[in-house]
């Protein structure tokens, strides 16, 4: 509960029983934090401590006036980032969020620290580095000095310690300070960090009296020299990149808007029918059909299939589209499976294709690899580019010079136009309207020569028509 306003400082931890071992650096840090918060005269309801796992995570109970969120190991900075993003962008508020994390948590959650620094969210991290995992029995950490003896480095640590301040500076953090728990000015350092608008981190080097001192004959006045022996500097370590904190940048780019768009429209407030595919013609199709379009990446196979599906809806049909391509999207085959039907399409797969449109070598290879040809019935049709060598099939085959007549990026559209001209599943004009809609006013998608080629198509056009 928040104490009444007349209390001197709602943050004082002077009279609290500390849950730490005698001489533990954490007690110093939390006293300085209490004093810093008191000096800043912050409304306690606008302060949130986010604590990590480990001894420093016992701090919550010492700050009964402020919000406390005790998190999972290493993730404290990530939860704090989420609270801050929502607070600053969505609530337009100025919550002060302070993370308390140890050296163990800092390493397991290193990416959260790096990302908070990169985003430059208004979060303050107090990293209490006592060189080891204290709560679990004094195991070595990524911050243990060389030769440091711990339960899990009994002959001395052989891995150099991480310089977290350098990492933070490299992540473009602008307020980075290394300090000692015994530094007299730690209160003002913490107060500055909390006041700083943007990400700030204070690494506080301290002692674990239970596990750090005895085996290493270590005392508090050696801490500075241990850190310096590893090239770790004290004081303020500035990043060079001067920049605003995340929320102000974000809100500048994406200012809040009052109007709420109804579903179905990506923009605009009008409930305009232009946003929908209103049927303009009809179809005599009496059953579901499956059409496969196979070509090459970058040759508009899938986007053309999408326009075909749009045209089917304009013809009052149902349509579905499933795409396939290799894991790398810009090379190799490109594949679309289209279903059209006068009734709702439940099953979106194609067991036996009614038609296969193949417009490139990649497409042909993939059609063969998927085992599509042997399943084709005599009623099925294959429409392929003239250059392709189509394997033996029971289906009827039509080959036309799509690529040479229309170009590679229009070959899929040309093949589907031939399909509609032959089958009249729905008017080919509906498909051409969809294609022309993409070309701009006054221009038509296909040249006149291709329209003439389409006009000449008839059932006798199939290579194996007389079979």
């Amino acid at each position, binding site marked *: 509960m928040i104490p009444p306003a007349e209390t001197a400082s709602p943050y004082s931890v002077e009279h609290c029983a500390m849950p730490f071992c005698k001489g533990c650096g954490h007690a110093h840090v939390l006293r300085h934090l209490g004093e810093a918060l008191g000096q800043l005269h912050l409304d306690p309801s606008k302060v949130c401590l986010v604590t990590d796992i480990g001894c420093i995570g016992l701090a919550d109970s010492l700050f009964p006036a402020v*919000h406390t*969120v005790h*998190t999972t190991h290493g993730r404290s900075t990530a939860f704090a980032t989420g*609270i801050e993003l*929502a607070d600053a*962008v969505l*609530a337009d508020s100025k919550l002060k969020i302070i993370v308390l994390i140890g050296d163990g948590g800092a390493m397991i959650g290193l990416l959260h620290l790096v990302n908070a620094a990169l985003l430059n969210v208004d979060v303050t991290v107090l990293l209490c580095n006592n060189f080891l995992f204290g709560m679990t029995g004094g195991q070595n950490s990524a911050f243990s000095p060389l030769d440091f003896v711990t339960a899990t480095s009994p002959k001395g640590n052989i891995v150099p310690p991480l310089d977290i301040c350098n990492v933070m500076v490299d992540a473009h953090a602008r307020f980075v300070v290394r300090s000692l728990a015994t530094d007299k000015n730690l209160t003002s350092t913490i107060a500055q960090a909390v006041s700083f608008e943007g990400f700030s981190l204070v690494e506080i080097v301290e002692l674990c009296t239970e596990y750090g001192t005895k085996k290493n004959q270590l005392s508090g006045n050696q801490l500075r020299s241990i850190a310096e022996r590893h090239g770790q500097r004290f004081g303020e370590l500035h990043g060079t990149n001067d920049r605003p904190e995340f929320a102000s940048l974000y809100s500048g780019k994406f200012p809040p808007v009052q109007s709420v768009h109804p579903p179905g429209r990506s923009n605009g407030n009008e409930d305009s029918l232009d946003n929908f*595919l*209103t049927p303009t013609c009809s179809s005599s199709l009496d059953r579901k059909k499956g059409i496969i379009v196979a070509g090459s990446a970058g040759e508009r196979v899938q986007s053309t299939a999408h326009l075909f599906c749009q045209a089917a809806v304009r013809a009052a049909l149902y349509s579905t589209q499933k795409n396939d391509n290799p894991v790398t999207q810009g090379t190799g085959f490109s594949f679309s499976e289209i279903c059209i039907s006068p009734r709702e399409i*439940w099953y979106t797969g194609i067991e036996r294709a009614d038609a296969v449109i193949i417009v490139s070598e990649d497409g042909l290879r993939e059609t063969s690899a998927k085992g599509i040809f042997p399943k084709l019935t005599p009623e099925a049709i294959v429409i392929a580019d003239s250059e392709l060598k189509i394997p033996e099939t029971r289906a009827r085959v039509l080959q036309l010079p799509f690529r040479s007549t229309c170009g590679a990026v229009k070959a899929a559209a040309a093949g589907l136009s031939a399909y509609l001209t032959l089958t009249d599943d729905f008017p080919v004009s509906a498909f051409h309207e969809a294609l022309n809609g993409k070309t701009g006013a006054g221009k038509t998608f296909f040249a006149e020569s291709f329209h003439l080629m389409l006009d000449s198509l008839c059932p006798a056009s199939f290579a194996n028509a007389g079979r």
Partner: protein
Amino acid sequence: MQKLQLRSGNQMVAEGAVAAGCRFFAGYPITPASGIYKGMIDLLQQRGDLAVSAPDEISALAYCVGASMRGFKPMTATSGPGWALMTETVQYALMTETPVVIALVQRLGPSTGGATQGAQGDLLFVEYCTSGGYTIPVFCPSTLRECYELTHRAFSCAEELRTPVVLLLDKEVGMTVARIDYGDLQTPALVNRPANVEYRGSLPGKQRMYEFADRSEVPAFVPVGGRMKVTATGSAHNKSGELKKNDDETLDVLYHLESKITAHADKFKVLGIDREEGAATLILSYGITARAMRESVYLARAGGKKVSAINVQSLFPVPYRELTAAAEGASRIIVAEENMQGQYRQVIEHVFRAQEVLGVNKIGSMITPEEISRLII
């Protein structure tokens, strides 16, 4: 009036989320869920709401949980490999009673599996992800309309029960584009977490972080940054949110976390029941396979056979009562799902004492209507 468009399931999830009042999305790319990420970036940013790229899935969900603690409805989207990373934070959300919706678009596993191959193999991985075996509500759409409406439902459930909720899609439902009629969509009323109260002035004497009289009660939400102090922890805690070992009140809180879900389960049941009098066969399915089931039912009836079917859209908590009621009179239950073992069948088959229970299962491609039809008697 018809308002027709072509949309993918992933797009409808994004639109359903925004319609449900979602204002915070943190995402990380993964096939086949990236469409939801892209959709939320487009929809939220143009409204001035927050959609942000996270550096990994752990961060994505942690950002969402933080935003929810601040009082906003969040969502993230992932697939199996990302879910593997999220399970730590899912448990944290459960423990701290923080509402969050996770859309999980399944692909073929295990491990990185098949990024562009569909599957329904994450069902048990999702449901049994907690230490302690707590119930995670799971909604599973099979159509575009269900994607939209169940996303809305998932938010209502998360908010009302203050718990993480999973919206379980699969690659085929998420990525396949189909015709949708916006004129036919139902957008239910917005549901917000109970008593999102900011206490001002004198504080109520006994109000605590997790106040409940009965274990099944959902405590009033206290936002970080409000006038009432938040005390949250992922460790076992009493009703004040204070970290405790197993005293009676702390154990009461742990029982409460499960009781509040099961006690309110009826409210969030969604089943598409298509029952035919005199049918000996009842087919149960969900997600993409429910579409094959509906096709096989259509074909069977066209061929003069009688058959009943249920499209289970709320998989967990398991709607046992509805399933057993629908099975009355049937002698054969077919559970069709695109995984190796029959994951949902394993969960539900013990309740069908009077019936023969058969599975239609496979991996690598969609189950076809014919594969289901073969078992209809």
